């Protein structure tokens, strides 16, 4: 069996689905952050797969950009979670409902 782009795409889709599910169903903010990372990386995988398939470097460059964004996001996200934990003594998102009218 030759490993073609469709395998990468299917893997990417599966990873994206797992990440999405994790974001939606988990209550621990750290896990949610990790799930988001998973979704971003599944996107990266698709980008790299297409880049290789078309013989074009643009996709790889985009993957780099996404990594940068992901790093920033993790930095901010973890900072928020730390701040929350200090104030509320929990990282359960259902218990943190201060973002409302």
């Amino acid at each position, binding site marked *: 069996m030759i490993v*073609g*782009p*469709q395998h990468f795409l299917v893997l990417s889709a599966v990873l994206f689905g797992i990440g*999405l599910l994790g*974001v*939606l169903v988990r*209550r621990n903010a750290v896990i*949610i952050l990790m799930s988001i990372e998973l979704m971003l990386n599944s996107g990266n995988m698709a980008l790299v797969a297409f880049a290789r398939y078309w013989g074009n470097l643009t996709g790889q460059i985009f993957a780099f950009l996404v990594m940068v964004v992901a790093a920033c996001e993790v930095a901010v996200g973890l900072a928020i979670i730390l701040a929350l934990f200090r104030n509320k003594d929990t990282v359960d*998102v*259902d218990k*943190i*409902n*201060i*973002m*409302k*009218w």
Partner: protein
Amino acid sequence: MAIELIRAVDVNWIAFIVLFPFLGFLFNGLGYLVFRERFPRWLSNWSACLTIAASFIFAAIGLYVISQEPEDVYYVQKVFTWLSVGDFRADFGFIFDHLSAIMCLVVTLVGLLIHIYATGYMGHDPGYARFFTYMNLFMFMMLILVLADNIVLLFVGWEGVGLCSYLLIGFWYEDWEKARAGLKAFIVNRIGDFGFLLGIFTLFLFLHTVELVPMKSWIAEHSGQFGHLTVLGVKVATLAGIFLFIGACGKSAQIPLYVWLPDAMAGPTPVSALIHAATMVTAGVYMIGRMSFVYVHSPVALAVVAVIGALTALYAGTIGLTQKDIKRVLAYSTISQLGYMFLAMGTMAFASGIFHLFTHAFFKALLFLGAGSVIVAYHHKEQDITNMGGLSRYLPWTHRTVLIAFLAIIGIPPFAGFWSKDEILFRAFASSNQVLHKYHLNLLLWAIAVTAALVTAIYMTRWMILTFWGSSRTDEETRHHLQESPNSMIIPLGFLAAGSLLAGFLGVPAFFGGSNWFEHFLEPAFAAVPPAEITGILNEEFMELVLVLMSVAAAALGLLIATAAYFDKLFPAEKPGLADRIADKVKPLYQLSYNKYYVDEIYDYTIVQPTLRGSYYFLFRFFDVMIIDGFVNGLAALSAFTGRLLRRFQNGIVSNYLFFFVAGVVLIIFYMGAVGPTGGWAITLKALLKNLLSQIKNLR
């Protein structure tokens, strides 16, 4: 009728006549704005009076210059192009022809005298500079009106004088009654102005110009065509003439729009003299003279003007018979005299109408200023003539000058009013207007006018007896303080008295051996009219003599009747005088006249109240509150309501937000698939996958 080749000469001095009062207005206005009551009086005095004097000098020189030219020459000046849209063009331009020359002279001369008088009359008023600001603005607007070379600019002046009239009637605006009188004048004038605007539109629609000179020459060249131009079966000339006359009715206080003028007496007396007697109210007469080239094509419109004028002359006179306010009697007298002028205009005696305007400006301004002098003597505390009497002893100079005006207005020869009024009566009798002839209205109009002359003589004699003659009915205390007015007021009275005495001699008709200079001077300004003639059984000379005797007899008879009726006021008697007994006998008639035929009440009941109620209940309470406010408030309530619903979604749980987000993305994808160009979303997805797979296979 030859088409006259009118020669317009470009000059550059006409604008100065208008400019000076404007400078005075700016100076006083700025002075008042900056310094308020502390603006020095002598500055107001000199700036206001000198600017008018400068205008007067320019106007007088202009009059002299134009009288030296051949009679078909007149002056024009285009200052700048004011409006130019498509084929509509109106310049800020002036025309100084014979008619404007006379009007300018009247306005600036009488205006100057009244300004000087006002420095005395308004001497103790805190709003001194404000008063002269308005007065100068009025002069500016009035001069624009008489000098305008197109009807649109004329309308600007027309509205401008209306504004000043409003401002000056309500000059003492702290008094609600006076502010109300100003409002009434303004609103009643709006009705007339609406007619005036329709007239302008009509003329522009059919003549494609608003400029007077091209309009006049077009009509002169196409007089046959213009005479037959109709719209909806009505002649354009008639339509325009009647619309313009509605405007004149408002401004010049004719039936049915005269009701504002008596109330306008709430303003300071110099204002009544200048605006509501000598100048502004005669604007309607001037306008008809100015548009005479339209009116001569419509005997119907002229007949309307003549009939309304004659009726107003008599009607206002009968109200004047019983009024008690010293200025109100004069106000009704003004309405009546304006009626005479319109009668003259309607019988195509344009020059006679303007002649009466000219003489009336002198003697009516004089009467008003005399009344003002009386009011000052009473320290503004008394205006009821039934409480006066015997003032000739206390105010000798006021009495002497007013006496001349009195003789002029009732038409005793050789005072000014006699010449002009007699001319009008004669021309009404001999009018060549076909419509009047057809219905035999000539004689009727003449009879009405002679009766009005009789009534004029009666109420003016009554006014004189009750105010100046006989014994005083004022209490001892007040009488003690009565004294003659200062020289600044008496000297203008003297000049006006000279005018009332001499102005008439400018228009002595050929019958009396005169040359009727006035009429010949004005001739080029008006449209040519067929000469008036008496188509009667007797010869013309004899008829004319009879008519003159009739009008003098009417004046003399009126004088006698009033003297007999008020004999008890001249020489106090035990029993009540004839006038009181007559009033007692025909109480309903007396009440009718005293209450001004209840016209104010009728207007109030039929027009004012319904309008007010309609405005309050329909426009305000229903339309404004429910429809306009309802719509705006409804929108606000709707967004508040949806907001209250939607904020339920924002419950602070991050997972929920995420769920809605993902659901939204899914919905969008689903929607795009469902309505996409290739059909349902499933099909699209399938096609996409197939395409991808086949591409991959092909690559192999």
